Structure formats: C-alpha cells, structure tokens
C-alpha cells in the first residue's frame, strides 16, 4: 500500500465536518439553556455568541480536534489563532473601534470563551500565567515579558505563524492586554456534548425513555431552521421568544402524558339486582358489609359509583386511543399483583394454621378478621395506569371491578366460594 492519499481521501471532509458538528451541537446545548432576555447567535459574531439582557456578550470559539494527542500545548495553533481573531474583532475599525478607549469599552462588555475537546495539561505555562494574572498575583509587565520570550524564535530559526500571533498580543499596550486576559476563559475537555444535551433535556422534565424522541425533533427542526435562515441570507440569531415559540411543542413529545380523568360523576343509583354482584356478596360474606347496617345503602352507592367511574374512564381512554388494550391488560395484572401481595400478607398466619387443620375447623371469626385486614389494606393502595396516578376513588373502583369477576377476593377461601 502506498502512503499517497487517494483523491477520495483528499476530498473527504470528515475531519472538517466533525468540527462543524461540534460547533452545531454546542450551539444546541447553549440554546437549550437560553433564559429570558438572552439571544444566542450561530456563526454571526463568532462561532457561537450569547447576548445577555444587560448588554454583556460572550463570544465563543470552538475547536475540535480528532488527531491531536489530546492536550492543549502552550503554542497550540488553534489557541493562538483564536486569540488573534479576537484581537482583530476588538480593534475592528469598521465597527468604529480604532481608538483605544472604545476597544477597552468593548472588552469590558465581552467575555471570550474558547471551547475545545483538548484537555488541560499541567505543564501549560501560558494557562498558568493567565490564571495568575487574573488573580492579580502576577504583574502585567512580567506577563508581557513572558509573551515576548514565548514568541522569540530560537537562534537561526524564523518566526512561525504562531509566533506572529503571540507578538500581535504582545504589541498591544498594557491596559489592553490586562483587560483582555481577564475576560478570557477556557473550557477544556468538552467532548461529551450529547451527555450535556441530554442532561439539559432532563432538566426540562423530559422522561428518560422519551429523551431520544425529543432530541431528534429539536435537532432536525434546528438544522432546518439554520439552513433556511442562511439560504435567505438572514443571520441565525435566536431570542428567548423565538426559542419558546419554535421549540416548546417538541417538548410535548416528551411530556409525561397524563390521562384526562373525568372527575365529576353524579352518584349512581344502585342497580336492582345488586345482590347478584360478586363484589357485594364477597363483602357480605366477609362481614365487612351487613344488610342491617344503617349506612348499608350509602356504602353500596359509594361502591357502585367508584366502579362506574373507573369503567367509564377506561372506556373513554380506550375509545380516544389514549391507551391501548395492552395497557389495560397490564393495568389489570398490576392491580391483581398488588392485591395478591396484600392477600398473602394478611393470610400468612392463617395459612400456616391451615397446614395442620382443615378449613372447616378454622375459627370463622379469624377468617373474617384476616379478610377485613386484606380488604382495607387493598383499599389504601393507589394505582397507576400509563404513568397517570389514579386517585383513591378510581383505584378502589378497579378493585371492586376485579372482585366482581372474580379475579380477586378477600376471604382465604374465596376461590372455592365464588369461582365457577
């Protein structure tokens, strides 16, 4: 194999395009953090820029590298080229910043941030000096001396491009350099942009399993928007209002969907043949209800009302396709499971006894005691269907429905009594 690159290899832009994507996803990440009064721009004033409500601006340069060893060296070309670019922006005469007063004014209102996936190296003298200067532990004169030393080439060598960038900074006066360095920031080892974006989405209460959906929806919409804006020669600047208008609906996709519960149900009349309902028979047999109770009729109304309330809501959700048959079945088996645990718990003692004696020898008082315990235990449970928590009435209704079938029962011998 020859080392010569093929035409296809030469023209392929993988390393370039990842740089663009890096920039794009960083922009997306910033966009998801936008606050009221802010605007975020893409490729307008810099790779990405953020404008605050009070007029402060942050210019952000992004540098992504796939080939480097991974650490930011003192004479990193990207680093110094970026600084040189910023100096050009600060001294841009086309924007009326040729006088040093207006330059200083501009620096004071701007933050400069370099974001890269390269990591910090403890040996990077330049970054150390920058920090020392920021903490006022280093004088500006000695900082400039350091710059001069840095950009002076070794004997017999010519000034490299990076050296030229460094001397450009060195040539500025003390006030300029000091103010500029103090507004300079580095964000290193930023490589996990997707993690960051997913965290942003989670912060907006998007549930885990819908993260992917919401991300794709926002991503494709934003790409389309950038394409259209650039095509019509407009600048990609998004304000909080634009963001809110354009992107809020995509969070709908991730909204933990709550089923609309119809709460207002008039009290239902008791059906004439209420005694034939197994749910009622079970309660009578467990002596939880008694026909001679003063509030017997009231109890029946409560039971039938919550039963109808649940049945109607489920039916409504099914017909409006809010839930599917499968979800209904899952809901049923979940409810049965909850009952099962409680039934086993309340009858554990009785069951042990049953191993020694037959069911006819058991004390009927004890059977009823356990059934009552199980019943009130189950009534205290709250059920959930398709992420929607049902209130007490609806949850109880589900257990009455199930005890009608009967899929559940209260007494230890419910199966023998009511099944078939």
């Amino acid at each position, binding site marked *: 194999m020859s080392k010569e690159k093929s035409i296809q290899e030469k023209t392929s832009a993988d390393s370039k395009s990842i740089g663009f994507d890096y920039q794009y996803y960083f922009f997306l990440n910033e966009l998801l953090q936008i606050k009221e009064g802010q605007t975020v721009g893409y490729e307008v004033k810099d790779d990405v820029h953020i404008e605050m409500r009070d007029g402060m601006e942050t210019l952000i340069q992004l540098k992504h590298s796939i080939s480097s060893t991974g650490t930011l060296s003192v004479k990193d070309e990207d680093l110094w080229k970026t600084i040189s670019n910023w100096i050009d922006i600060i001294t841009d005469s086309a924007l009326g910043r040729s006088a040093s007063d207006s330059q200083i004014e501009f620096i004071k209102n701007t933050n400069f941030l370099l974001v890269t996936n390269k990591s910090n190296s403890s040996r990077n003298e330049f970054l150390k000096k920058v920090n020392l200067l920021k903490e006022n532990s280093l004088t500006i004169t000695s900082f400039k001396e350091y710059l001069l030393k840095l950009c002076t080439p070794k004997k017999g060598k010519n000034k490299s491009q990076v050296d030229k960038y460094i001397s450009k900074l060195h040539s500025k006066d003390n006030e300029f350099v000091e103010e500029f360095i103090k507004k300079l920031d580095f964000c290193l080892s930023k490589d996990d942009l997707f993690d960051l974006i997913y965290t942003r989405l989670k912060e907006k209460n998007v549930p885990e399993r819908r993260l992917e959906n919401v991300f794709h929806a926002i991503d494709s*919409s934003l790409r389309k928007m950038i394409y259209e804006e650039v095509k019509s020669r407009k600048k990609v600047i998004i304000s909080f209002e634009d963001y809110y208008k354009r992107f809020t609906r995509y969070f709908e996709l991730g909204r933990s969907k709550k089923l609309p519960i119809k709460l207002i149900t008039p009290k239902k009349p008791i059906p004439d043949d209420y005694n034939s309902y197994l749910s009622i028979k079970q309660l009578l047999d467990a002596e939880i209800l008694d026909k001679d109770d003063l509030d017997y009729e009231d109890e029946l109304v409560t039971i039938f009302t919550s039963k109808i309330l649940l049945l109607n809501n489920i*039916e409504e959700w099914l017909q409006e396709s809010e839930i*599917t048959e499968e979800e209904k079945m899952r809901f049923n088996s979940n409810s049965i499971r909850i009952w099962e645990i409680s039934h086993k718990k309340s009858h554990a003692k009785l069951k042990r006894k049953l191993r020694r004696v037959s069911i006819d020898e058991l004390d009927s008082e004890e059977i009823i005691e356990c059934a009552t315990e199980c019943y009130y235990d189950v009534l205290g449970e709250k059920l959930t269907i398709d992420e929607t928590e049902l209130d007490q009435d609806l949850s109880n209704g589900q257990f009455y429905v199930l005890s009608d079938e009967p899929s559940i029962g209260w007494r230890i011998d419910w199966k023998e009594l009511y099944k078939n």
Partner: protein
Amino acid sequence: MREVNYRNNDYYSNDSFNNEVLGLIAIYYVLKHAHKMSSAKVMLILPLAFHNNIVRYINDSRTDVKSIDQLIIKKPEFFSNFNERFYSMLEISANSTLILAAMNLISIQEDGMIVLKDSDENLLLESTKKKDIGIRAFNIVKASKGIGELLNQRKENLYLQLRVEI
C-alpha cells in the same frame, strides 16, 4: 357521559370498539383512493383511522393536512403512543386485510403489494350513508382519502417519522 352496562363480566369482553369490521371498512376505503399499497403501509392505516381525533382533524374543513411530517409537528399529541397503537392493532390490521382478500375485494401479490380489485358489482358496502353504517364508520370513510394521502410517501420514511420500533 357514556353509560356502561351493569352486566357482570363485561370488562374483559369489551374490546369490540376497534374491530375487524371497522378495520375492513378503513382499509378498503383507503385502498379505494390509493388502489395499490405495500402491506407495510396497509398496517399503518388502522392506527391512524382508529384514532378519533386524527379522523376528526382530517375531516375538519378548516384544516389542510399536507403530509404526515406536518401533522406530527402540528399535533405531536396524536402520535405520542403511536408505536403502542401500531402493535395493539396489528392483529386487527392483518385479519382485516386477509378477510378483504378472502372476500375477493383485494389481492395480495407475491411481492407484498396489496391491490384493490376494482369492479362496480363487487363493493364492500352498498351504502356509506351515516344512517346505514353508523357515525364512526362514516367518519372513517370520509377521512380515507386524507389517510391515503398521508401514507403517500416512502414506507421507510413513514416508519421512521412515526417512530415504530421494529
């Protein structure tokens, strides 16, 4: 409020709301407009046609539904459980298609394409009037052209847009 019968045991036997008869009608009338469709696309008809809000939205004279992409953007809530609906109705979709084939109204070709057999004597329904077939079927028939248009693009893209997990 819809009334529920006081009958016992009506709870489990109650999945007749979305049934094969309605499935036949929905698939047949969508094919009436499209004439020919891949079976993969036919499976997408019922999750759309059995969603009352989608049908209502398509039939609304004030709305103009151009494509499935546009509808998803405008009404994401219609599609939040599309995947679940797709699998829940897959059985009815397959049954209805097979019944239509057995009734000799459509033919299933070897490459999976489903083709409507067009003839005037051989119709699924003699009348599609509201009083004859009921309001839900009537609305589905009315929306069938719109549903056919929604499905008028590459099936790969449809499954991607609707996020059906395969």
